[in-house]
């Protein structure tokens, strides 16, 4: 499905991340939460891939598995290093992973809990530099000041503690920390979800600008399609541990090929209040990742479901050029996107 293009920086094949459930008197494994259940995607260099889905669909787990904060249950994660070498990182040890961590970093969601309250801003932003022995002493201070300026914070405040800053400012501190080692790939795990809407815009714009200036590739994880739309080149839609659609932003929003995407897109409020929204209300509940449905995971709630949908799982295939969908009827269905 994915051709060996030279500029793919991250490629994930059949990634699975299952978490055991312990129960019973002796704490035996009684089942698994299939947070990520066999997903395939790739990100090209310098592009932003938005990974969307509702809470609990596994998108945060994807981000953490890629950065080896978990040990993947199955699958392959291929990362292309700055020297062009492709490495498979799903099974390497943490010690081998450490040098790679300079090139792939994460932005965390909660600005209040992702910064150690007992450490100053200088220590927080400078910590990656210290761990990887990049700088120390006054050189460290210089670099921290530079990083603070680049995210819009006054370096004079580097001796302050996180609790003296607002949420948006703390997220900028986290951003400075993420950029400190000049990474190439950033996994942004819902970086603006905890912020006020006006601050969201500022941080998003900052992220865009930094991406251009520093040549970053971003996996942007979010649950809000309107946020993702603004910043992403391509969008991948996740549902209960699987990717159901992946294409360029415009294609996903205007001509979705998967019924779930259609429902998501229909819920985006248009900017014109006179336009009547026709939201698709999905029937039923989101299934538990410990007990996913047979066949297509979306079939119990899908208004277009047929018998085959409950029997066979549809693979994620390229239905149109660069537009992937996991639906048996992707070609036949005429689904509605934004703008009719």
């Amino acid at each position: 499905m994915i051709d060996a293009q030279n500029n793919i920086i991250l490629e994930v094949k059949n990634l699975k991340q299952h978490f055991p459930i312990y129960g019973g008197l002796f704490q035996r494994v009684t089942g698994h939460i299939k947070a990520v259940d066999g997903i395939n995607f790739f990100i090209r260099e310098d592009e932003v891939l938005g990974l969307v889905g509702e809470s609990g669909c596994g998108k945060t787990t994807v981000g953490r598995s890629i950065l080896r904060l978990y040990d993947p249950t199955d699958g392959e994660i291929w990362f292309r290093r700055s020297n062009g070498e492709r490495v498979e990182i799903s099974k390497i040890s943490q010690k081998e992973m450490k040098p790679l961590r300079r090139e792939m970093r994460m932005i965390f969601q909660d600005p209040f809990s992702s910064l150690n309250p007992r450490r100053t801003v200088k220590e927080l932003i400078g910590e990656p530099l210290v761990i990887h022995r990049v700088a120390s002493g006054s050189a460290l201070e210089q670099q921290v000041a530079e990083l603070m300026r680049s995210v819009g914070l006054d370096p004079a405040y580097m001796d302050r503690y996180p609790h003296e800053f607002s949420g948006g400012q703390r997220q900028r501190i986290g951003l400075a920390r993420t950029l400190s080692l000049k990474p190439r790939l950033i996994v942004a795990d819902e970086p603006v979800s905890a912020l006020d809407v006006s601050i969201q815009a500022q941080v998003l714009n900052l992220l865009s600008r930094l991406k251009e200036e520093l040549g970053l590739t971003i996996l942007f994880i979010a649950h809000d399609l309107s946020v993702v739309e603004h910043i992403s080149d391509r969008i991948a839609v996740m549902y209960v541990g699987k990717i159901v659609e992946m294409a360029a932003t415009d294609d996903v929003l205007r001509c979705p090929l998967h019924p779930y995407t259609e429902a998501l897109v229909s819920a985006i409020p248009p900017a014109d209040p006179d336009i009547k929204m026709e939201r698709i209300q999905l029937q039923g509940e989101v299934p538990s990742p410990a007990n996913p449905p047979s066949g297509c995971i979306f079939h119990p709630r899908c208004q277009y479901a047929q018998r085959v949908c409950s029997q066979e799982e549809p693979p994620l295939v390229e239905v149109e050029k660069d537009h992937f969908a996991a639906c048996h009827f992707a070609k036949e269905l005429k689904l509605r996107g934004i703008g009719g």
Partner: protein
Amino acid sequence: MAERAVTIPSEDAVPVYRLKVEEHESYANLVWRKFRKSPISILGGLMVLMLFSLSVFSDFFAPYDPVKLNMREGYLPPNKLHFIDAQGKFHLQPFTYAWKQVLDENMQATWVEDTSIAFPVRLFVTGWEYKLFGLIPSTLHLYGVDGYEQGGRIFLLGTDKFGRDIFARSCLAGRISLAMSLFGTFISVAVGSVLGVISGYYGGNLDTFLQRFVEFVQSFPQLPLWMALAAIIPVTWDQMAVFIAMSVIFALLSWTLLAREVRGKVLALRETDFILAAREMGASDARIIFYHLYPNCLSHIIVVLTLTIPTIILSESFLSFLGIGIQEPLVSWGVMMREAQTIQTLGFNLWIISPVFFIFVAVLGFNFLGDGLRDAADPYTIT
């Protein structure tokens, strides 16, 4: 077909955010601000400070050498401070009378004040020589009376069997009692916090094993264990070695409280995003434990520290009272209590028991201090 019009403010220049220009508060500042709002905590702090001053500068506060034997003046009652003399005249400067023993009508010896000579109490007098901090020779003392040959004395808490000023001795005894409790607490905190953090961070079998070990240690009957361990200390050891050994023995049984508390805190902290962020950037386990987890446990550690000190003071007093551990010529509050063991001694010379007030002030002071610190140590939670 309506166009989606989403307007987002564009920015050419990067906005530099200026914080409200407030006084920058360090963690210590925040803690102090909250601490000083509680009067009882301040009181506790003052009590502790006073005891430390009395102990460290005990020679300055002692009008008589607490170590020198003076058999002829054994068991003298405390000299009373008078402002009104036998003729009813008021003096601003307090004075004392010497004691003399007379036989009353039943041929029993009783103490009566000899009002023929009044000895005014003076401040900053010259007295016996001592070395401040063991280095600087000095003869300055806070208070004293003249007329030694005529019998002028000021034993504020009386004398013991060997004629030594009990007040002076109590101040001196504070050195051992406080130093041992500090040293023992330090060991206890060091051991307890490290084991607690390791237990909480690594979890799994290591955690289970350490917790069972903690329970094992806690189920020991303390006193018999101390007695046994103290009895093992060879009599040939010098004072310093005995001191260290006793401190270690006390620490051995008190580290478990901190281990449990720190483990609990670490279990909670382990799941926070900033610990995840530390792992994400490649921090080693050691770094996460000592650089990130430890400082966040500091409030717990400080509180347990200030509450372990009085525990050890009491334990040491108890053991020394029983004759285990600290021996003469070292003196602690517990050792001084040893003389107050028989009913006759106590009946005739009640002042022998006065070191107990020093212990009382120490324990109360540290408890108030610890309570105040517990409230103040977490300044980030808004109450």
